[in-house]
């Protein structure tokens, strides 16, 4: 556990293999923060596109016909729990507990994969029910936004698998706490983005549809969300 103590060292005495930096923040960690700032604008633009086109589709299926909020609530819960597992993994790495780190990493990977599984199921179901990428504005914006989010999660899963493999092969302290911490930043960010997407596309936009076809409860809900949006 040669690295366990160095991770707590103050910036004035960084671990031997980390470069000294002006701010004391590691280069790679700062890079990740800057990247996440950039990614905010990426998802922000995609979400803005969705919101601009919300309710503008000319032909169906409309969100109300097809969005299944309960199922996605389950997958959202799974993704949130994966963030919990990630936090525990980062803590294990900080304490230098390699065995626990590997366990938490794999739990994060499994939970993330379950989320992706839900998404694959959902996309396939939508396709079967007649919502293809080129069907209407809803389908184009929905698949693009959630697809790019899914791609981010998938990339994160591959990253965590790499970390887990490295950890399994190196009982002496790799990946470093920092390696895990940076992956954790990414993972939590992708999770937070999903919370925004779930709120806007499912909880608020999931009941969208042409008003004449809707029953009173849905119309009431649309009225409420219309006030918000």
């Amino acid at each position: 556990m040669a690295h366990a103590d160095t991770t707590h060292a103050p910036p004035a005495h960084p671990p031997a293999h980390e470069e000294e930096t002006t701010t004391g923040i590691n280069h790679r960690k700062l890079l990740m923060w800057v990247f996440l700032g950039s990614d905010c604008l990426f998802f922000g633009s995609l979400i803005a596109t969705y919101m601009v086109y919300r309710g503008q589709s000319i032909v169906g299926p409309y969100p109300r016909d097809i969005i299944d909020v309960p199922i996605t609530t389950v997958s959202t819960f799974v993704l949130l729990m994966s963030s919990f597992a990630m936090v525990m993994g980062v803590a294990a790495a900080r304490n230098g507990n390699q065995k626990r780190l590997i366990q938490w990493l794999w739990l994060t990977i499994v939970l993330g994969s379950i989320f992706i599984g839900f998404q694959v199921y959902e996309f396939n179901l939508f396709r079967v029910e007649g919502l293809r990428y080129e069907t209407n504005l809803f389908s184009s914006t929905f698949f693009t936004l959630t697809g790019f989010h899914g791609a981010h999660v998938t990339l994160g899963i591959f990253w965590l698998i790499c970390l887990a493999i490295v950890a399994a092969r190196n009982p002496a302290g790799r990946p470093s706490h920092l390696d895990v911490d940076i992956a954790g930043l990414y993972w939590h960010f992708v999770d937070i983005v999903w919370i925004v997407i779930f709120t806007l596309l499912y909880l608020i936009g999931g009941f969208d549809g042409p008003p004449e076809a809707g029953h009173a409860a849905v119309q009431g809900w649309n009225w409420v969300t219309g006030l918000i949006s």
Partner: protein
Amino acid sequence: MVTITGVIPRPSTYTGLWSWLTTVDHKRIGALYGFSAFFFFVVGGIEAGIMRLQLVTSDNSLVSADWFNAMFTMHGTTMIFMAIMPFGATFFNFLIPLMIGARDVAFPRLNAFSYWTFLFGALLMHAGFLIGQVPDAGWFSYANLTAAPFSEGKGLDFWALSLQVLGVASLAAGFNFVVTIINMRAPGMSLMRMPVFVWMTLVTSILLVLAFPIITVALIELTADRQFGANFFNTAAGGDPILWQHLFWLFGHPEVYILILPAMGVVSEIIPTFSRKPLFGYPVVIFSGIVIAIMSWAVWSHHMFTVGLGAIANSVFTITTMLIAVPTGVKIFNWIGTMWSGSIDLRTPMLMAIGFVALFIVGGLSGVSHAVSPSDFQQQDTYYIVAHIHYVLFGGAIFGIFAGIYYWYPKITGKMYNELLGKIHFWLMFIGMNLTFFPMHYAGLNGMPRRIYTYAEGFGWEGMNLLATIGYFIIVISLLIFIHNFFRSIKKGEEAGHDPWDAPTLEWSISSPPPVYNFAEVPVVRGQDAYWITKREAAARGETVPAEPHVDPDTIHMPSPSYWPLITSFGVVWIAGGLLIDVGWDYIRFPISFIGGIITIIGVIGWSNEPAAEEHHEAAGHH
């Protein structure tokens, strides 16, 4: 740990072609950026020349309307994304580590990746010429000119996918320089002791990082529409073409400042040096730069005044656009205040810098005139706008870039350029530039629309266009003189010495050209204009400050060359290029594109499995 290294042994030499392909040295990457940018500057210039020759007189038939469309599209795209931006990157790369007292950027291999991705993206864009598929919807490519039914062929696909690749390069560079400037400053170099050029690079990099995701999304949507049948800008499905304009200009206006802020940084270094005075109001100049960057997010709809966004939107954007002229004006007063009662030395870099200030004022004033939306209704889509954009981007950015090239020429090459030829270059370019673009104000106010490939006689536009075309050729002559001066001086120029200008910044404290490790001993900064402080203190003791003596490079641990960035860039451009393959069977392009993804992944894995620097001199260390 047993590291997985590549099948090819890691390069370790500093000579030959292979060393350039695998270099991670920021100075070499800067040089590569510079030559590539100049190459594309010439390409964009030739495209401009074709337009000027076509428009020289009424009812001219040198080129067809279609070809003219391709020319103005590629001229704008090339100059903005493949000339001015990489010129900026040239200075960032070469100078930032030297100015902040660092040995390299924070991520040297990422830096190499940025360059190769930029080069491949630019080549992919121009590959369209080889198969006659040239983008032709303007550099802004408004929807729904870009929709498949209205733009057949692959031209717009080349445009969208190549720009996506160029965006990857810019983002990677932006990340790198933000981290480098925040995290790699020499001891004592607090933020408010950084040279203004470093500050402007930081601001530009932050703008890059935040603005490029927006164009990325816009291009994803355009590509999805064209390649996969999505409906983002498909009016038949309820899509709104105005969305493209919002996304494009929300990126596009910060982009304008991405183009001009580096030039402002360059000029802020040159004017104090040649006025023998510290910059007047240093914190105000920096604050203005930051304010410009923030406000650049709130002015985009002034590109869209005639779209019909309504009176309130037009009024708001009129006000914000006029406001952004304030910090810009503040900077101009600071430069003039620096020159005021300074002992001015009118060398070529200083002439170029003063030319920048003068021409940028003209461009700024015409800019304010169409910040007013009722006035803009008269000017929209006329040559008046063409005149404005060229006063800020040619008179501004290009003059700033040439000022920087002359100023740092002795540092980069170790030789002194020919001063007389430099001054002739300046005067010819200054006269040619004004002769080309000033008449466009009148042509525009006289009603000549932009982007027309010819015009009938009787409108009274011939004279102005003839002047503009003559001006173009004067600019060409001035650039030929520059090229001659540049290459002749490398061979035959006098030795420049390490500090020919008695300059205030750290890059002048080391030999010219700088050694591979930059600083043998990391400098300690004790104030603003750090090298002036060192020199004044030495002068008080009756001494002069020599260049830092060279040491054996092997004693300094530097990042090792790597071929993985090149492979990764190649994979990235293959992903984009694969989607452009058209061999009859439509779906072949997806698997071909997928191969690019595999190459990218191989590149990334190889990259992450090799250490940043090979351990030549130490034991295995932490591995």
